């Protein structure tokens, strides 16, 4: 049943894409996130679906897409260099077989991230990409949210469509991703044109209804998976939302009220697990993590160029577990030493350091830092615009920056340095940056060309391209002004 469902969906999408090759690209993004070949039982799981879609997307673009407006960016070069570096480190990896396994999906995520900004050359494509990512993630978020709300939850036991605790289907990872897309969901509801809430009252209700429900579903994911990472990410998101909130006290009051209302509804197992955030000594997983990070630092000092993917498999950690017992009023504290082996990084920063060394970590941090700075720059430069052609830019930059920060926070607790979803967010940010830059450059040309002609009034009553946004003008009269840097 599921197989036929996916097959029909894919065939329908591909059929639509024949007329619009850009849709091949969206379909590949969908396949990368939802992985229907993994969810399929007998039809699709025999097919190298990902590779086929990848090929179709690239060929569709090569053959069918107008390359006009295509712009390169130095970050794509940095991604390329990092890709090359990872490839070389895979060849010389400490664990060649396992490294090869990880490389087989990492290279695709990074190549895709390099390629995507080349095609994201219109506002609608940026929105379409964001929408595809959000709706694809919603396939997991809706099921996770509903299962949590109806009582099925527990760390490692919440099944997100698939009984496979890996990739995006793993609790901590999806907790981070679910929280990170909340700002984008809200941006799409407010500024979307594909599902436009401003069309009429019915659209408004439907779009916002779905958006709010999806946001709640995403907020329930950390509860359902009992991933502490998700809770920390949600806390960061609330603080981030405070920054742009016009009514800060009301916002804070709202968040506190939400917490008070939600507290009795939270399962006790969740509360117990969350309380281990602050006391790490009696919790095995947290103390072992710190030991892994120490091991990774020492390893990096000995191997500054890194040891290739999955280098953590060689670690052996001497950890002390503190067990506190209460026997008939007498409290005893016992320190039990034990050896933990092949403990995963549980931290993307140390993952990069251990696997790709200082150069790899530096390139990776550079990418994230530049994306953050660029989104902040866009936020500031487009703060005061009211032109409908531009007023969506600052909110989109804010939404992506917020999601990115959530990811970087989650990355402190989970090894998601190469998670394909975040590479798509990076590509989207590069795409937004190059799009705005190109439009500003074009705007610098336009006023000169028209003024030289000394044009009389055109059909809309203006002879010279207005540089300032004109009030009550329909969006077709765009007044792009190069924004002061």
């Amino acid at each position, binding site marked *: 049943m599921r197989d036929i*469902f996916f097959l029909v969906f894919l065939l329908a999408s591909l059929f*639509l894409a024949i007329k619009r090759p850009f849709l091949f690209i969206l379909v590949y993004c969908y396949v990368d996130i939802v992985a229907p070949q993994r969810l399929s039982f007998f039809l699709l799981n025999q097919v190298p679906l990902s590779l086929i879609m990848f090929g179709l997307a690239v060929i569709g673009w090569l053959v069918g897409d107008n390359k006009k407006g295509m712009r390169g960016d130095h970050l794509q070069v940095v991604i390329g260099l990092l890709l090359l570096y990872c490839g070389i480190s895979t060849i010389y990896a400490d664990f060649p077989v396992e490294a090869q396994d990880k490389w087989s999906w990492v290279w695709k995520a990074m190549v895709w991230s390099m390629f995507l900004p080349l095609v994201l050359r*219109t506002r609608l494509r940026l929105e379409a990409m964001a929408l595809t990512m959000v*709706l694809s993630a919603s396939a997991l978020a809706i099921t996770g949210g509903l299962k949590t709300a109806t009582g099925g939850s527990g760390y490692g036991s919440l099944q997100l469509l698939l009984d496979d605790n890996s990739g995006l289907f793993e609790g901590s990872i999806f907790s981070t991703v679910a929280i990170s897309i909340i700002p984008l969901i809200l941006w799409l509801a407010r500024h979307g044109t594909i599902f436009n809430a401003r069309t009429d009252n019915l659209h408004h209700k439907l779009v916002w209804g779905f958006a709010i429900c999806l946001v709640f579903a995403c907020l329930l994911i950390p509860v359902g998976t009992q991933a502490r990472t998700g809770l920390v990410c949600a806390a960061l998101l609330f603080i981030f939302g405070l920054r742009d909130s016009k009514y800060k006290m009301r916002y804070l009051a709202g968040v506190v009220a939400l917490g008070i209302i939600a507290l009795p509804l939270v399962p006790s197992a969740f509360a117990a697990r969350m309380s281990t955030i602050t006391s790490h000594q009696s919790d095995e997983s947290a103390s072992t993590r710190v030991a892994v990070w120490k091991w990774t630092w020492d390893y990096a000092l000995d191997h500054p160029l890194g040891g290739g993917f999955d280098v953590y498999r060689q670690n052996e950690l001497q950890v002390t577990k503190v067990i506190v017992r209460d026997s008939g009023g007498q409290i005893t504290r016992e320190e039990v030493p034990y050896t933990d082996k092949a403990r995963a990084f549980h931290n993307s920063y140390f993952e990069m350091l251990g696997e790709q060394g200082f150069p790899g970590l530096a390139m990776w941090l550079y990418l994230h830092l530049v994306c953050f700075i660029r989104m902040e720059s866009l936020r500031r430069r487009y703060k005061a615009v009211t032109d409908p052609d531009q007023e969506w830019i600052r909110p989109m930059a804010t939404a992506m920056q917020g999601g990115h920060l959530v990811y970087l926070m989650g990355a402190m607790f989970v090894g998601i340095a190469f998670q394909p979803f975040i590479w798509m967010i990076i590509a989207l940010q590069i795409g937004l940056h190059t799009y705005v830059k190109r*439009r500003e450059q*074009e*705007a610098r040309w*336009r006023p000169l060309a028209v003024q*030289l002609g000394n*044009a009389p009034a055109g059909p809309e009553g203006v002879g010279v391209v207005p540089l300032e946004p004109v009030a009550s003008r329909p969006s077709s009269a765009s007044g792009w002004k190069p924004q002061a840097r």
Partner: protein
Amino acid sequence: MIDMFSLALSHSLLLLAFWRLRSRDDLDEEAEPGMAHRSSGFARQNDGQ
């Protein structure tokens, strides 16, 4: 049940989005800044029209 509902809802919306995108001209081409309203006279010649 929940899985099927989630898949059905998300995938229907995706398909609807793809369908809508198919008929949008601004997916592939956008008006250049200021090109949306056409000026006349010398300006049009300068535009390369």
